[in-house]
């Protein structure tokens, strides 16, 4: 067993264990960052597989995504810190069976199917090749990713905003705030928005 093998098994076990712990912990913050730990270990395995850019970028991307994940988990889950131990599952047996079947099926495929033997050249300039590919062969993928991300941004803003040009998102669903001072009306916001804009232009 080489050093790379040892490292692989350490990272692999850590990735699987933290992935499992995600659904076994009561604290939503711990769950989010256990998922992050799973991603970090997979990133480390990608580095071992000589995909150093994908591996390191995975660390970076998943970290910020899991920070956002933690914010939303805490925001919307009851008992977010798990102060009271809880069991929030349904159909546990079906889920367990489905999980085992998935693992077994895919594992069988991994063992049985004869994959072509074409290992990556350790001396290859993989990052440069990726850059050339993005600007050349996969240019369309790259640009359509831009459009998709734009659509995502617009959708996310429309869906999450309390109010906007499509009217008050809260209309008819929630009682108005109790405190008159805390009441925040959409028309105030329109004024405030304009003010923000002027401030920006005035400052620069």
């Amino acid at each position: 067993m080489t050093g790379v093998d040892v490292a692989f098994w350490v990272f692999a076990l850590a990735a699987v264990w933290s992935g499992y712990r995600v659904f076994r912990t009561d604290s939503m913050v711990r769950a989010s960052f256990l998922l992050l730990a799973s991603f970090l270990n997979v990133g480390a395995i990608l580095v071992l597989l000589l995909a150093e850019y994908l591996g390191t970028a995975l660390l970076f991307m998943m970290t910020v995504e899991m920070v956002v994940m933690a914010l939303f988990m805490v925001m919307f889950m009851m008992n977010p810190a798990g102060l009271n131990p809880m069991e929030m599952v349904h159909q546990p047996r079906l889920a367990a069976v489905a999980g085992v079947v998935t693992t077994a099926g895919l594992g069988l495929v991994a063992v049985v199917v004869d994959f072509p033997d074409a290992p990556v050249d350790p001396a290859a300039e993989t990052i440069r090749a990726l850059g050339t590919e993005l600007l050349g062969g996969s240019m369309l993928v790259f640009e359509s990713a831009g459009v998709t991300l734009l659509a995502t941004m617009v959708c996310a803003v429309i869906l999450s905003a309390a109010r906007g040009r499509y009217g008050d998102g809260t209309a008819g669903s929630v009682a108005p705030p109790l405190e008159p001072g805390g009441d925040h009306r959409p028309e105030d916001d329109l004024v405030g928005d304009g003010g923000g804009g002027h401030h920006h232009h005035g400052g620069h």
Partner: protein
Amino acid sequence: MAVSWLARLAADAPTPVFAVAGVDAWGAVQELRGDPRIRLAATPRHAAVLLVAGTILAGHGEALRRVHDQLPRPRAVVVWRAPGTGPAIPALAVVDGSADEVVSAVGRAHASILADPTRAQADLLPDEEPTEWRGVGPFGQGGEGMMGGTPYGRPMAMTGDDRDGLALDQLHLTLGPFLDPLPPGLTLDVTLQGEVLQDVAVDRAAPPVVDHAAPGDPATPAAAARRGLHWLAHALHVEGLDALAGRAAHLASQVAVGDVAADRSADRLARLVTATGVLRSLRGVGAVDGADASDRWRQRLAAIVAALRDGVVPRALEPAPSDDAALAGLLVGVTLTDAVSTLVSLELPGVLRPAVAA
């Protein structure tokens, strides 16, 4: 011995002090920021010595004892200029003299508990959980169900409506009376959702009868300038500019002894404060009658400079906002950050009387 060597090294450091001050001694405590031998900590957790200065109201006895207990061990208490009324607190040293004397006493108290931890002061409140929780409930942590019970001694927060339409959890907190960033004698009952204040109730200590360092209309330009500098030292500290706060406090002590060089220093200090951008960052915060926190800072700086350079006693202005309800109204709907900045910039009656240039 290694321990005594460590104790001596620690005793030579600026003593970390958490100060609890009555309204009458608050200015004098702020002046201590100008002394490099001590460091006024923002939280009792960072302090080794508790300094209790001036008149503490009888109603604040439990709060005082709680702050005392929150200091990590070994801890010492130094009492300064206590009128003898108010809650009693066991102290390692009682000082009635000048700032210099109290700083020396604080240093000695720190050195003494380091040299002999048995001299350190024990907790004042009983070692009791807020609610008995051990062994209660299905998991023995005091809770029941998903959100119920008192896990580890306290209930969980519950939801409340919000301007954003997302009914998430509210925190009901009492801030003060000895929270470092708040003006003295002020207690806020707040309801927070996220970091936005949804509801505020202001509780102000009745101005105590005072006989020294009295807040009131200052009769002389020097007294007015000194009071302004006390405010400035605290305000700069809250805005994260501790070193400049030290300069302001040092200037205040120079004014106190009638140092003639103080007038030029005041000009320089005002320019330095402006250069930090604090006036810009406070623009639009806590506007009352068309004047925001930035305007109020500017007025106060001008008043300090005018008092020291031109010998003008600043004209007292009506405090704004006029009553507690108006003050609470000013804080509702803003973030805790902005609320603190607003409170620090305001002239609060019964807390500090106004001093603004004519």
